C-alpha cells in the first residue's frame, strides 16, 4: 500500500494513500469531530461537523469523505474551521429541545460533549422551535424527533449492520424524521442497536428510559448469559438492579453488537417468581420454604446416603466453567457415580475427534469477519447465532467475503450469499456437495454447522472440507452461554475434563429412563421440560435453579441459584473462546452454584479444596488441556482467548447420548427467557426459524 505525506496542523504524517482524512487524523491523535461519520458504516457527510481547511481547496472540506493524497495540507483548528464548527452546532441546537436535565442521554451525549468542547454558550434564535410528539415504535424503542440530529446512524446500523433495514426517513427539510419502514411500528430483531448508536437522546430504550442518570450507575463488563456466542455486555447497575445492557466501549469479541437478549433480557433477574429461599417437600407432598441451613443439611445427608453408581447428575449449559468442573469432580469422586451429563446441543466432540492430528482448525468469532469465504450448514444463524451472523454480514460489507448457505428454509444470509441451497436438514451433506466446485475455488473457508450434522456426518463434512484443497476451519454450533464449557469440563457420561476417557455412566436420557435411579441432582437445567417425566418415581431429586421449572416442581429439595449476572467465573463460547464473568448484582436468598456445591461438600465432610472461582480456575488451568496456556491478563481485562482442546483423538463413546439443539429463536433461550418480561413483550408471535 502506497504511503503519502500529509501535513495536519503543521505536523507531517504518513498515511495510506486514499485513507479517509478523519481516520488519518485520529491515528495521529487529532480529533476531527463528527456525528454522522461512523467507523464501519457507509459514508454520509451529512452533519458537516467535520469540515476542515485544506490548502488549495476553494471551501472547507468534509474530513469524513476526503481521501488523503500526497502533499495535502490540512488545518483542523484554524479560525474558519473553528467558526464553522460553532455555527454547525448552533444550527444543530437551533431546534434541539435542550431538555438535557430529563434526557436519558444527558452525561453521555455526543451532542452535549461537542457543544461543551466546540460550541458557543448561548443561542441567537428567538423563534419558536418546531415540536413533534414522541413516538413509541415498539415496547423497547421510543423516538423523540426534536432531539434527532438526522445523522442516519440508526438507519445504517439497521440496514448494514443488522441486515434488517427497518428504518428510513420520511418527509423532508426540517420536517424530516426517522420512521420505521412499516410506518408506525417496528418489525425487526428489536436488537436496540439503533438506540445504542444514537449520538443524542432521540432513540431511547423502553426499559432504561427515565430510570437513572448514566453517572449514577456502575458499569460491569461481563458476558451475556443467553446464547452460545458469548457477547461481552456492560451491565449498568444501579442500587443492585441491572437497568441497562450495552457495550458502548466496543470491547470484547462483539464490539458494540448485542441482540435483543443481550441488550434487554437481563430482567429475569428481577422476575417476581425468582426463587429466593430453598424449598423442601413436606409430609403433605408440597414444596415448603425452608432455611438454607436446613435444606443443605438435608441434601448433604441424603447425598451421603444415596452416593453410588445409581446417583444421577445433570449439569448445566449456563453455569461457569468452574462450576461445571467442580460438579463433575464432585460427582465422580465424592458421589462415586459416572452418570453425569448435560443437554448437549451440538457435536463438538466428534468435530474435535475428526480434526485430531491437525491444529488451528477451530475458527474463532473474529475469523468469521476476516475469512474469505463462509459456508453455513443447517442453521438459521441470524436467529440462533446472532453475533456470528453479524460478523459474516460485516465481512461481506467490508471485505466482500463469499457466503454460501445450505439450509432447509430461507435465511437472512440468502441476501448476501453467492449461492443458497435449499435441502432438508437430513440431506445437508448432499447440498454441501453441490457447492464443491465453487468452494474449491475459494482461497480459504470457514464451515459453520448446526446439530443436524452430528456423528458420522461431522466426519463426512470434515472429509469434504479437507478434500477441497484449501485451508478450512470449522465451528460446531451449540446453543447456550456455556454449552461449550460443559463439554470441555467433562460434564459427560464417558469423558472427563479435556475429553479424556472415564468410566462410562448413564447419559441424560438414560438417567431419566432408569427406574432404578436413586437420586437425581440437577444443576441449572430443566430436563423435564415439555411434559417429560422421571422413570424412577422414588428418586430423591435436588434441583438448583432460578425458577420453579418443570424439573424443580418434581424436586424434593429446590435450592435457589444465582444467575450468570450474579457471579464471577469464566465461560467458553461456541468458538471455544474463554471469557470472564463479573458479578453485577446480588439477589437476596440465592447462592452461586459453586458455593452450593462447596457447602454440600462441606456438609458431607468431603474436602474439595478451596472453593472459589479463582482457585478452581487455577485447578482447571493445571489439569484441563486447552485451558493451561490461557494468557490471564487478556481474560482478566475482559478479552477472549480461544482454547485449544486435545489434539490426539477423542475416545469413542460407548454411551448413546442425544445431541439436539433446542431450536431457539432470536427471542428465546430456554427457561431464562420465559421469565424475561421484555422479551415476552416484544415477541408478538412465536418466532420461527427459517422464515
Amino acid at each position, binding site marked *: 500500500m502506497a504511503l503519502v505525506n500529509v501535513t495536519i496542523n503543521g505536523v507531517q504524517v504518513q498515511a495510506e494513500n486514499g485513507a479517509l482524512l478523519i481516520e488519518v487524523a485520529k491515528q495521529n491523535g487529532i480529533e476531527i469531530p463528527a456525528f454522522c461519520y461512523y467507523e464501519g458504516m457507509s459514508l*454520509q*457527510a*451529512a*452533519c458537516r*461537523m467535520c469540515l476542515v481547511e485544506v490548502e488549495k481547496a476553494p471551501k472547507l472540506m468534509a474530513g469524513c469523505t476526503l481521501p488523503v493524497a500526497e502533499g495535502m495540507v490540512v488545518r483542523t483548528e484554524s479560525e474558519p474551521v473553528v467558526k464553522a464548527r460553532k455555527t454547525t452546532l448552533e444550527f444543530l441546537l437551533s*431546534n434541539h429541545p435542550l431538555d438535557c436535565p430529563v434526557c436519558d442521554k444527558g452525561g453521555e451525549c455526543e451532542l452535549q460533549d461537542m457543544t461543551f468542547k466546540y460550541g458557543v454558550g448561548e443561542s441567537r434564535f428567538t423563534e419558536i422551535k418546531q415540536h413533534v410528539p414522541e413516538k413509541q415504535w415498539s415496547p423497547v424503542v421510543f423516538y423523540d424527533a426534536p432531539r434527532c440530529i*438526522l445523522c442516519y446512524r440508526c438507519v445504517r446500523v439497521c440496514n448494514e449492520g443488522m441486515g434488517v433495514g427497518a428504518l428510513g*426517513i420520511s418527509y*423532508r*427539510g426540517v420536517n424530516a424524521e426517522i420512521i420505521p419502514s412499516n410506518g408506525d411500528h417496528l418489525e425487526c430483531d428489536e436488537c436496540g442497536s439503533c438506540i445504542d448508536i444514537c449520538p443524542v437522546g432521540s432513540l431511547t430504550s423502553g426499559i432504561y428510559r427515565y430510570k437513572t442518570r448514566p453517572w449514577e450507575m456502575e458499569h460491569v463488563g461481563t458476558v451475556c448469559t443467553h446464547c452460545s456466542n458469548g457477547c461481552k455486555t456492560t451491565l449498568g447497575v444501579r442500587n443492585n438492579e441491572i437497568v441497562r445492557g450495552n457495550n458502548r466501549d466496543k470491547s470484547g469479541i462483539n464490539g458494540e453488537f448485542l441482540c435483543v437478549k443481550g441488550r434487554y433480557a437481563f430482567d429475569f433477574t428481577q422476575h417476581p417468581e425468582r426463587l429466593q429461599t430453598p424449598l423442601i417437600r413436606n409430609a403433605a407432598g408440597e414444596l415448603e420454604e425452608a432455611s438454607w441451613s436446613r435444606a443443605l443439611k438435608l441434601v448433604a445427608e441424603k447425598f451421603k446416603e444415596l452416593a453410588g453408581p445409581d446417583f444421577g447428575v445433570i449439569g448445566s449449559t449456563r453455569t461457569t466453567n468452574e462450576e461445571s468442573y467442580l460438579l463433575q469432580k464432585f460427582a465422580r469422586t465424592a458421589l462415586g457415580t459416572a452418570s453425569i451429563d448435560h443437554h448437549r446441543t451440538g457435536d463438538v466432540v466428534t468435530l474435535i475427534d475428526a480434526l485430531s492430528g491437525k491444529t488451528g482448525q477451530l475458527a474463532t468469532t473474529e475469523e468469521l469477519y476476516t475469512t474469505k469465504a463462509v459456508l453455513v450448514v443447517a442453521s438459521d444463524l441470524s436467529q440462533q447465532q446472532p453475533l456470528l451472523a453479524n460478523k459474516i454480514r460485516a465481512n461481506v460489507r467490508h471485505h466482500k467475503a463469499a457466503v454460501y448457505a445450505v439450509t432447509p428454509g430461507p435465511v437472512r444470509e440468502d441476501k448476501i450469499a453467492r449461492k443458497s441451497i435449499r435441502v432438508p436438514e437430513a440431506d445437508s451433506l448432499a447440498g454441501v456437495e453441490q457447492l464443491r466446485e465453487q468452494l474449491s475455488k475459494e482461497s480459504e473457508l470457514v464451515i459453520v454447522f448446526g446439530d443436524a450434522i452430528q456423528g458420522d456426518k461431522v466426519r463426512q463434512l470434515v472429509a469434504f472440507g479437507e478434500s477441497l484443497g484449501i485451508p478450512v476451519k470449522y465451528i460446531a454450533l451449540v446453543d447456550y452461554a456455556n454449552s461449550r464449557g460443559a463439554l470441555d469440563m467433562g460434564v459427560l457420561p464417558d469423558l472427563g475434563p479435556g475429553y479424556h476417557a472415564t468410566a462410562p455412566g448413564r447419559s441424560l436420557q438414560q438417567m431419566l429412563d432408569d427406574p432404578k435411579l436413586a437420586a437425581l441432582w440437577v444443576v441449572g437445567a430443566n430436563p423435564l421440560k415439555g411434559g417429560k417425566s422421571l422413570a424412577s418415581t422414588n428418586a430423591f431429586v435436588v434441583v438448583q435453579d432460578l425458577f420453579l421449572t418443570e424439573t424443580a416442581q418434581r424436586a424434593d429439595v429446590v435450592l435457589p441459584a444465582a444467575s450468570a449476572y450474579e457471579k464471577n467465573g469464566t465461560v467458553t463460547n461456541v468458538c471455544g473462546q474463554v471469557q470472564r464473568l463479573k458479578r453485577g448484582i446480588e439477589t437476596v436468598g440465592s447462592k452461586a452454584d459453586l458455593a452450593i456445591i462447596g457447602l454440600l461438600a462441606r456438609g458431607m465432610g468431603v474436602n474439595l479444596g478451596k472453593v472459589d472461582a479463582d482457585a478452581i480456575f487455577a485447578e482447571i488451568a493445571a489439569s484441563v488441556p486447552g485451558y493451561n496456556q490461557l494468557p490471564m491478563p487478556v481474560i482478566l481485562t475482559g478479552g477472549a482467548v480461544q482454547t485449544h482442546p486435545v489434539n490426539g483423538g477423542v475416545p469413542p463413546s460407548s454411551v448413546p447420548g442425544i445431541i439436539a439443539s433446542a431450536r431457539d429463536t432470536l427471542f428465546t433461550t430456554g427457561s431464562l427467557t420465559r421469565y424475561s418480561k421484555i422479551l415476552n413483550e416484544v415477541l408478538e408471535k412465536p418466532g420461527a426459524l427459517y422464515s
Partner: protein
Amino acid sequence: MKLFNEPSPLETKIISFRFGLENSASIDTYLANDGYKALRKALEMTPDDIINEVKASNLRGRGGAGFPTGMKWSFVPRASEKPKYIVVNADESEPGTCKDRLLIQHDPHQLIEGCLLGALAVGAKKGWIYIRGEYNYLIHIMDKAIAEAYNNGYLGKNICGSNFEFDLYTHTGAGAYECGEESALLESLEGKRGVPRIRPPFPAVSGAFQSPTLLNNVETFSSVPAILRMGGQAYADLGVPKSGGTRLVCMSGHVNKPGVYEVPLGFPLMKFVNEIGGGVWKGRALKAIIPGGSSSPLLKAEECDIPMDYDSIAKAGSMLGSGGLMVMDETTDMVKVALRIMRFYQHESCGWCIPCREGTTWLKKMLQRVSDGHGQTRDIDLIGDLAQNMMGRTFCPLGDAAAMPTIAIVKKYRNEFEEYVARNPFASPELVSIA
C-alpha cells in the same frame, strides 16, 4: 401549438426555430426542418469527433452550473464493463425558469436527437428523461414523440439502418426541487429518496445504477443537434469566447413582454430587458434584476449594464445560472423578495445536511418576523450571518442557492430592512444584559 410570447426580431433562433410551427412536436415537422440530420451526420463520425465538435462549440451546461459540456462528455470512460447511460435532467424547478418546458413542448424530437448524439459519443444504449412531476402534460408529449421515433426507426435497434441501438424512456419526479441536483436525480431515478450523493465518484464514472452516465440538462442536449449541423466552431462564434452559442432566457417579472427568448451568449442585459422585453412595465424605473434563477444574487439596476455571458455576470457578482431572468420595478419590497425566495428553499430543502435544513428554516422564520414588523436591528445582522454560515458548508449546492440571494439582498438593500425595523414599536437596539 401556440407560444406564450411573440418572437422578437432580435432573437437568434438556433434551437427554438421550430417553436410555433404547426405541429412542431410531431416527427413530420421535425424531419421537414433539419430533423435527425445531425444524427445521420454523427453516424458517420467517430465518438471522438463528436466530442471534439461539442468541445469546439464552447457549449456550457444550461442547467445552471455552466460546466463545459464537451469536457463532461469526455469524462465518461471509453471502456466500461458496465452499460453506459444517458440521463436528461428535465426537473426544471429553479424559480423563474421555464425554458426546458418549451423545448419539450414544442420540439421533443430535438431533445431525442440530442440524446442520440450523446449516446453515440459515449457509447450508451439506454437513456431516461427525468421530468419533474408537475410537468405531467409534458410527459405525454415526450412519450408520444418517443413512440414516433421508435416507429420511424430513430430509436430502438438499427437506428437509421446502422448498428447503433438506443432505448429512451421518460421517468417522472414527484415534486422535489432537490431532484434537479444531478446526484439526487439519479437516486430518485433509481427509486430511492431524492437526496444527493457523495462525490466523487461523479455520474460520468458512476451514475445511474452505478454505471457511467452522461447527465445533462434538456437545453444542453437540445443544443447538440444544431452544433453538429452547423459545426462546433460556427456555433461557438455565435457567442463570446468561453461561452459559445445561444441560450434561452426566460424573462419574467415587471416587464412589458415577458417570455422565453433565444439570444447569443454575451447579449447585453439591458438591451434584452428594454428592447426584447419592452422595458419595465407601467413606465416605472428598474430596481433590480435576478439574472439566472432565484438562487443567483440579484443585481441592482446600476449593476445591470453588462453582457449576458457566464463570465461577465460572474464578474458582477451573480450567475447566469438557469437563464431565469426576473425583473423588479422600483416598487418592489426587497424584504418580501428575500422572504419569498427563502420560503421556497426552506420548503425544498431535502433535510440531508444540517446547515441547509436548519439554516433555511431559521432564516425563513426570521425573515417572516421582520416582514411582519417585529424585527430587531440585530436580526438584520443575524440573517446575513446565518446565510453566510450556510455558504459553502452544505452537502449540495441547495444551501448555497438559498444563501446567495439572501446575502446579496441584505447587503444591497439593508436600508429596507432597517425601515422595517424602524416601524416596529417594540424594537430595541440592544439586548439588556442581566448583570
